[in-house]
């Protein structure tokens, strides 16, 4: 059920990117798609009743240096979190690039409307 709602969020973003005429609305649609994918990846690694994947003071054996099995059996998956951490910062970089393209286009054509840009020449 929760995965289906994540996918519904993705479809809303895809609809916005396909159908709207305003360039900034298209950028907003792409951002909604990125949020939904990050959320889905982190939800894949969730364990019900789990703890964050950070070892505390009393969760490891000081003599041997190994973590206790109670921690291993109750922590959430750290691998999707590592993927999503870099993806969030990259989405900010790509947002900056898209917005700079929009601003330059507005500077040249005077409008954000993509159908008008198709008809003007030069």
């Amino acid at each position: 059920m929760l995965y289906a709602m994540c996918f519904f969020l993705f479809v809303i973003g895809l609809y916005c990117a396909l159908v709207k005429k305003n360039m900034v609305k298209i950028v907003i649609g792409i951002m909604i798609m990125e949020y939904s994918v990050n959320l889905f990846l982190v939800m894949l690694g969730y364990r019900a009743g789990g703890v964050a994947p950070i070892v505390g003071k009393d969760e490891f054996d000081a003599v041997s240096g190994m973590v206790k099995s109670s921690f291993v059996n109750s922590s959430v998956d750290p691998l999707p979190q590592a993927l999503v951490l870099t993806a969030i910062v990259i989405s900010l970089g790509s947002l900056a690039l898209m917005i700079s393209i929009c601003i330059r286009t507005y500077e040249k054509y005077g409008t954000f409307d993509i159908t008008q840009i198709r008809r003007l020449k030069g």
Partner: protein
Amino acid sequence: MKGMTIIVKSVSSWVKMLVLLFGIYITIFGHLTPGGGFAGGVILACSYILLMLAFGREYAEENLSLCVASKLDCVGALLFAAVALCGFIYGAAGFFLNFVHQKWQAGQGSALKLVSGGTIPLSNIAICLKVGASLFMIVLILSVFRADSSSGKEEVS
């Protein structure tokens, strides 16, 4: 661009140091508590952008100009690559090897201390410099562009 009112200026002159300190704390303790290089770098950029929004673009450019920010960005990226290449000292399969932990720190009971984790804190600092300088640069460029285009002057970049 102009700054904001006197209340915003006086409050943000106290708060900017706290935000900077918080960003540095999140970066350095990234291997023990949640956070790391990416979160610390973004918070560091936020502190300089707070300066820019409250006091105006010229004040922020005196503090950290565009040239210095781009050089910091490159220094961060090169530091990350240098930490990775130093692993080659210890054998051919040594790219990104955590040589500090495996040679000098393993088995010495340094878990959960600040000086632990090997090359991980060094990589965190490099990533923090890189991400913070990049994000500050992009917001500065956006405001420079808007100032030039709205006033109608043609300025050499």
